[in-house]
């Protein structure tokens, strides 16, 4: 026994030493490039220590997880959503639910600051903020029969916080869908191969839906297997179409048309029966997602690529070409998912708490899944920074920033100190089976180039173009799944809200209400998507920070609820566990919102940009095609400015409401009673 303990201690000391060594190597490294293994080793050690010590401490001391306590899955078991589920199955379930395109896109964009700032935030942020949020919210919801975040805010803090949380969630959903739509449109723009492949995923999903519904009801694995095979074939098929001059033209679409196509698709997916499109697409996307992430992890470790991006670039001063703004606070806004994502709190208070078999699982499922998500973000960071920095900037910077011609673009980018040539970009585009890779903003194409390079070298074949389009298809399937599931959830939220105004509108199966509310949700995100597509600066530079701010504010709202619950349940001395990340998030979101609203720099401030463009338009300084879209862009910047203000106010309303509750608890005044369900012992448990 004692011997065992000594070995264990030695092991953890070794992990700490190796981790510290890897971190020291990263911090002190000065040179042309550094191997990605340094990052991976540092990350794995940090995760191991964080999970072994911090999450264990939270589980036993702060939350006091109780294995003798019956969970909602056991008490309310109904054979459907309330269902006790084995630990690792639930881990896979929860991870599949939280892992979306966010952790892939954010780090890719944040790589403009260099590899180090983003990596540190991904590691430290997930450990102290993201994992903690997911775990504590999962705990709170499990103790309350799986209630949602909005319900918990209302029950535990009060009506104001409850309403604010609901409105916040809805608005964030709208921004999230718009920005993801933009990413997918930018990946398909003037790429017949990508467009054909992504388009094919729709009939494939429907076929699988028909199979699982009509032919072999409920045979999920069979149906998914067929679907995934068809998806892989569609990647090859897209390549054939790209080679056929007669058909190629039908799939060569410009941005605005693709935006319309995505908008129509989103509406159709929200109103069609779930089994036909949404459910089968979700199954396919989940299999593809886990498979690809697993493959990427193996390939990255096996290949150990050199990172060519500097640790820190000159763009930390705020002059970054991909998005404007200084390192603080914008690196923390840009990487939301992967470090801390407010959206996770909706899943952690949604399906997962209803499946917890034993409270002990909350540690692995809540804390552990988020750690894996953080690792996915780290791989995206590696895939972005292993590219030649010049190539990375050429793909990710919009024509509006670097110039319309390839020659102008490479001249601008090379002048920043990141040399790149037109031939290099042409060769790369040709290898990837594309006509051009300049100005493909949004992160997906550059990630696909990175992934294709990794897969191609690791699995030793010469199929770059196939890998590239496989990666694009993988990202698109992922994104469209979030887009249609999100639209549907938004529809339910809106119907719930409208039902308060006029009863029949609240009936979720009444066709006029379904059509109206779906149209409203799609119109809301469709507006932002369309303006984003029209923007010559790529649109991502505007929408992504807005998404980051809103997602981090949702996280802050979740942490407010969690902190309030900790204090109310007599855990004041541990309230810092959620209070600290909450303080940090309030600081970064408030200062980012302040800059986006008040900054006089048109590259950062929304109102400054609107005024700048309005001035140029009035003075006749814009080219005719820019002048044509300028009024819409000006209006959009103003709307974004007010929206940011609204998000910041929302956070402060909930924060103050939470502090009011905390103050009342501490001064022993009356507060809303705790809604934690009463303890019931598991029979036969010791």
């Amino acid at each position, binding site marked *: 026994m004692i011997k065992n303990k000594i070995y264990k201690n030695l092991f953890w000391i070794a992990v700490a030493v190796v981790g510290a060594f890897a971190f020291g190597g990263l911090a002190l490294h000065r040179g042309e490039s550094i191997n990605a293994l340094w990052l991976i080793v540092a990350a794995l050690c940090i995760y191991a220590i964080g999970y072994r010590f911090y999450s264990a401490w939270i589980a036993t001391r702060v939350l006091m997880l109780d294995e003798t306590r019956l969970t909602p899955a056991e008490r309310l078991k109904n054979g*459907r959503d309330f269902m006790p589920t084995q630990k690792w199955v639930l881990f896979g379930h929860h991870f599949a639910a939280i892992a979306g395109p966010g952790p892939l896109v954010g780090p890719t964009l944040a790589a403009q600051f260099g590899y180090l700032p983003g990596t540190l935030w991904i590691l430290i942020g997930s450990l102290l903020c993201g994992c903690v949020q997911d775990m504590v919210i999962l705990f709170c919801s499990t103790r309350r029969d799986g209630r949602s975040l909005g319900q918990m805010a209302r029950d535990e803090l009060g009506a104001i916080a409850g309403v604010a949380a609901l409105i916040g969630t809805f608005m964030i959903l709208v921004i999230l869908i718009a920005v993801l739509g933009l990413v997918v449109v930018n990946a398909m723009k003037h790429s017949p191969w990508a467009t054909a492949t992504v388009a094919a995923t729709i009939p494939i999903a429907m076929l699988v839906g028909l199979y699982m519904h009509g032919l072999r009801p409920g045979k999920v*694995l069979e149906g998914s297997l067929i679907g995934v095979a068809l998806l892989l074939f569609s990647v090859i098929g897209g390549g054939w179409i790209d080679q056929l001059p007669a058909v190629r033209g039908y799939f060569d679409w410009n941005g605005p048309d693709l935006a319309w196509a995505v908008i129509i698709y989103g509406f159709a997916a929200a109103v069609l029966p779930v089994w036909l499109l949404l459910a089968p697409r979700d199954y396919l996307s989940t299999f593809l997602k886990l498979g690809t992430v697993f493959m990427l992890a193996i390939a990255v470790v096996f290949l150990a690529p050199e990172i060519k991006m500097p640790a820190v670039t000159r763009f930390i001063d705020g002059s970054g070409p991909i998005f404007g703004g200084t390192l603080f606070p914008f690196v923390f806004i840009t990487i939301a998912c992967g470090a801390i994502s407010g959206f996770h709190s909706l*899943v952690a208070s949604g399906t997962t708490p209803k499946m917890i078999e034993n409270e002990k699982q909350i540690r692995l499922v809540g804390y552990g899944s988020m750690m894996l998500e953080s690792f996915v973000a780290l791989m995206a960071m590696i895939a972005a920074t292993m590219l030649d920095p010049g190539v990375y900037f050429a793909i990710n910077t919009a024509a509006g920033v670097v110039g319309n011609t390839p020659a102008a673009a490479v001249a601008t980018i090379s002048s920043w100190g990141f040399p790149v040539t037109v031939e290099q970009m042409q060769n790369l585009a040709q290898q990837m089976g594309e006509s051009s890779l300049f100005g493909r903003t949004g992160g997906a194409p550059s990630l696909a180039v990175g992934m294709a390079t990794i897969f191609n070298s690791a699995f030793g074949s010469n199929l770059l173009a196939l890998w590239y389009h496989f990666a694009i298809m993988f990202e698109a399937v992922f994104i469209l799944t979030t887009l249609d599931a999100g639209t549907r959830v938004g529809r339910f939220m809106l119907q719930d809200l409208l039902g308060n105004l006029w009863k029949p509108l609240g009936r979720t199966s009444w066709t006029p209400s379904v059509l109206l509310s779906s149209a409203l949700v799609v119109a809301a995100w469709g507006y932002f998507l369309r303006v984003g597509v029209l923007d010559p600066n790529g649109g991502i530079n505007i929408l992504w920070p807005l998404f980051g701010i809103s997602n981090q504010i949702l996280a802050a709202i979740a942490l407010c609820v969690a902190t309030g619950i900790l204090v109310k349940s007599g855990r004041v001395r541990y309230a810092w566990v959620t209070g600290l990340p909450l303080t940090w998030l309030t600081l970064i979101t408030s200062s980012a919102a302040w800059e986006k609203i008040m900054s006089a720099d048109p590259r950062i401030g929304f109102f400054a940009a609107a005024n700048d463009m309005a001035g140029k338009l009035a003075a006749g300084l814009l080219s005719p095609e820019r002048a044509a879209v300028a009024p819409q862009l000006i209006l959009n910047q103003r709307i974004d400015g007010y929206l940011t203000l609204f998000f910041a106010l929302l956070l402060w309303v909930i924060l103050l409401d939470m502090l009011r509750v905390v103050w009342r608890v501490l001064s022993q005044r009356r507060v809303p009673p705790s809604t934690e369900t009463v303890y019931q012992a598991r029979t036969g448990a010791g």
Partner: protein
Amino acid sequence: MQADDRKTEGRIARCWAAVRQWSGDDAYERYLAHQRLAHPDAAPLDRRAFHRHYQQQRFSGVNRCC
């Protein structure tokens, strides 16, 4: 040898069961088992009807993230 084989078989079977449960492939069987225990008198839904309800329910809340 035989004992080892049986062990491996058991492991594979457990993995397969986990994959089925994770993907929802065995949802109907688990529903039937639950119905038999909890409501032995009521006639359970048939396979198709159950799956329609099951999927409807899965997609009426947030189950996918960014």
